[in-house]
C-alpha cells in the first residue's frame, strides 16, 4: 500500500514538472531618475498585485535610479531597460535617436506620455526671513540662492528656464530675462552637480536663503528638516514633464512588450494616480488633482515651448557650449 502511494506521489510530481506552470513570471526593469525611488517602489507593489489579479502572472519590477542624463546614457550603452521614466524630454529622446525607442513615442500613451508632471518651487528658511514670495524677491540684494548646475542637472535646467520664463511670460524682454538670470547666478555661491547634492547644501550645510527645487523634493525636504525650512509657491513657474516610454528594442528582445506597456498604462489608473499624488507629483487625472488641491496649489505653469521652440532648441540655446548660460560667467582677470 505504502509503496503504491509513493509511486502515485512520484507520478504526480513528474506530471507537475512536465506540465508548464500556469502562472508565468515576468521581470521588468524600470530605469528612472533620482527622486522617483519612493514613488516607483509604491507603484510597483500596486502594479504587481493588479497584474496578478488580471492575468494570474507574477511580475517583478527592478528599479534603477541615478542622474537622468547618466541613466539615459546607460540605456543607450546597453542597460536593458524595459521602460524608462526619465526627468526630461531630451533624455528619453536621446534613446530614440540611438534607435532603441520607436519614433513618435510621445503620442503612444495618453497625455503625451505624461502620467504626472512637476514644477520648480522655492524652499526658504523658517519664517521666510528674507520675505521671498515671487521670482523678483529671489534676486534681492543679500539673498543667496542654491540650485544645481544647469549643465549637469535636470533640476538645474528647469530652475534656469523657470527664472527665464518668469520674466518673459510677464512681458519682460529677452534682455530683461538675461539680466535677471545673470543676477540670479551671481548670487548663487555653489553650483552642485545634482538635485540631491543641492538639497544637502541647503538643508545640512545651511548655505543660502532660497533653494530652487523640484516640487516633490521640496515636500520631502520640508518633512526631513523638521520645521527648519518651509515651502513657498511662486505664482509662476515651469511645467516639468517627465515622460515615460517603453524601450522597443529591449522589450522585443526580452519578450516583455505586453507587461511593459501594461505597466506604463497602469500609471494612468485612478489607483496609481492616487499614489502619484501622495508622492507629491502632480497627477495628470484632473479629478485626482482636484482632490489634492491642498497639496498642489494653483500656479501658472508654462511649458518649455514658452521659452524655446522645443527641448532640443532649449538645450542648445540656453545650455549648449558657449551659449546663454555659459555667457553669464566671465573669466576672472
Amino acid at each position, binding site marked *: 500500500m505504502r509503496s503504491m502511494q509513493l509511486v502515485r506521489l512520484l507520478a504526480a510530481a513528474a506530471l507537475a514538472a512536465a506540465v508548464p506552470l500556469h502562472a508565468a513570471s515576468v521581470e521588468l526593469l524600470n530605469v528612472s531618475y533620482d527622486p522617483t525611488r519612493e514613488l516607483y517602489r509604491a507603484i510597483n507593489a500596486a502594479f504587481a498585485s493588479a497584474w496578478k489579479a488580471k492575468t494570474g502572472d507574477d511580475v517583478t519590477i527592478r528599479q534603477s535610479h541615478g542622474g537622468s*542624463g*547618466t541613466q539615459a*546614457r546607460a540605456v543607450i550603452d546597453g542597460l536593458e531597460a524595459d521602460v524608462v521614466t526619465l526627468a526630461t524630454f531630451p533624455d528619453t529622446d*536621446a534613446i530614440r535617436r540611438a534607435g532603441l525607442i520607436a519614433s513618435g513615442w510621445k503620442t503612444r500613451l495618453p497625455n503625451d506620455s505624461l502620467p504626472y508632471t512637476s514644477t520648480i518651487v522655492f524652499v526658504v528658511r523658517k519664517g521666510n526671513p528674507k520675505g521671498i514670495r515671487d521670482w523678483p524677491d529671489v534676486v534681492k540684494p543679500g539673498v543667496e540662492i542654491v540650485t544645481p*548646475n544647469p*549643465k*549637469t542637472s535636470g533640476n538645474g535646467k528647469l530652475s534656469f528656464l523657470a527664472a527665464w520664463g518668469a520674466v518673459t511670460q510677464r512681458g519682460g524682454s529677452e534682455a530683461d530675462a538675461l539680466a535677471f538670470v545673470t543676477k540670479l547666478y551671481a548670487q548663487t*555661491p*555653489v*553650483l*552642485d*552637480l545634482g538635485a540631491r*547634492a543641492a538639497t*544637502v*547644501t541647503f538643508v*545640512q*550645510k*545651511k*548655505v543660502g536663503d532660497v533653494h530652487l527645487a523640484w516640487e516633490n523634493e521640496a515636500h520631502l525636504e520640508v518633512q526631513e528638516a523638521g520645521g527648519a525650512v518651509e515651502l513657498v509657491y511662486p505664482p509662476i513657474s515651469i511645467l516639468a514633464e517627465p515622460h515615460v516610454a517603453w524601450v522597443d528594442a529591449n522589450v522585443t528582445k526580452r519578450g516583455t512588450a505586453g507587461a511593459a506597456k501594461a505597466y506604463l498604462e497602469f500609471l494612468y489608473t485612478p489607483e496609481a494616480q492616487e499614489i502619484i499624488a501622495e508622492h507629491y507629483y502632480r497627477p495628470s487625472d484632473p479629478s485626482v488633482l482636484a482632490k489634492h488641491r491642498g497639496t498642489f496649489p494653483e500656479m501658472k505653469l508654462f511649458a518649455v515651448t514658452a521659452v524655446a521652440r522645443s527641448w532640443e532648441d532649449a*538645450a542648445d540655446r540656453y*545650455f*549648449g*557650449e*558657449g551659449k546663454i548660460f*555659459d555667457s553669464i*560667467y*566671465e*573669466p*576672472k582677470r
Partner: protein
Amino acid sequence: MTTDVNRRVLPGFSLSLGWTLVYLSLLVLVPTAAGFLKASTLSFDAFWAAVSSERAVAAYRLTVGVSLAAALVNVALGVLVAWVLVRYRFPGKTLLDSLVDFPFALPTAVAGLVYSALFVESGWYGRFLVPLGIEGAYSRLGIVLVLVFVGFPFVVRTLQPVLEGLDRDVEEAAACLGATRLQTAVRVIFPSILPAIVTGFALAFARSLGEYGSVVFVSGNMPFETEIAPVLVVARLEEFAYAEATAIAIVLLAISFVTLLAIDLLQRWSSRRHA
C-alpha cells in the same frame, strides 16, 4: 646592468609575462585607446575648440594648480609622519599607522561632503574660520584641503620603507666625523630619501589631477573660479557630446602621463648622480 631572463629562480616566465601583457592591455591600454579613438572622430579644429576654450584652460590651470599645492603640502606632512612612524616608539603607534591608509578606504565623495560640512559657516571649523575670512568650503582652499586628504597616504607609504632601510651607521659615522645634526639631516639623510619623496609627490599629484568625487562637493563648481576639468567632462557628457568630453579627458591624461614620465626621468638622473 643586464638581466638574464633565462636564469631565473622561479619557472614560468613566458606565462607570467603573457598574463601581465594581456591584463595590462585589457584593463589599461584598450580603454585608453578607445578614448583616443572616440576623440579622433573629431576634426582637428573641433578637437582644438573643445580643449582650448577659455573655460577649459581655466579649469586645467585650476586642476594643475590645486594638485601641485596639495602634493607639496603632502610632502611636508608626509615626511614628518613617516619619520615619526619609523623612528619613534609610542603607545598607539599601530593604530596611527593604519589611520594613514584611511583616505584609501573612505569613498572620496564622503570626504568631500564631510569637509564642506565642516568648513561652511555653520560647520564645526567654519564657525571660527569664516569670521576670520578663511573660506574652507566652496573655494580653492577647500579643494586643496580635500586633495591633501585624498593624496596623504602616497608620500607616507613610499617614504616609510626607505626610511626603515636607512643605515643608522651612516648617521653615526656622520656624527663621528663632526657633522652637526642639521648637516646630517640635510647632507646624509635627505639625499637618500629624495627619490622616494619625489615618487610620493608624483603619485599624490597624479592622483589629485583625476580626483572628482570629493572635489565636486567642496568646490562649489563656479566656472573660471572653482570648476575643475573633470566637471567639464561631465557637463559635456550631459549634452551627449561624447567626443568632446573625451577630448578634455585626453588632455588630463596627457598632463598626468607627462608628469609621471618627467618624474621618472628625474629619478633616474638623481639615482645615477648618487650612485
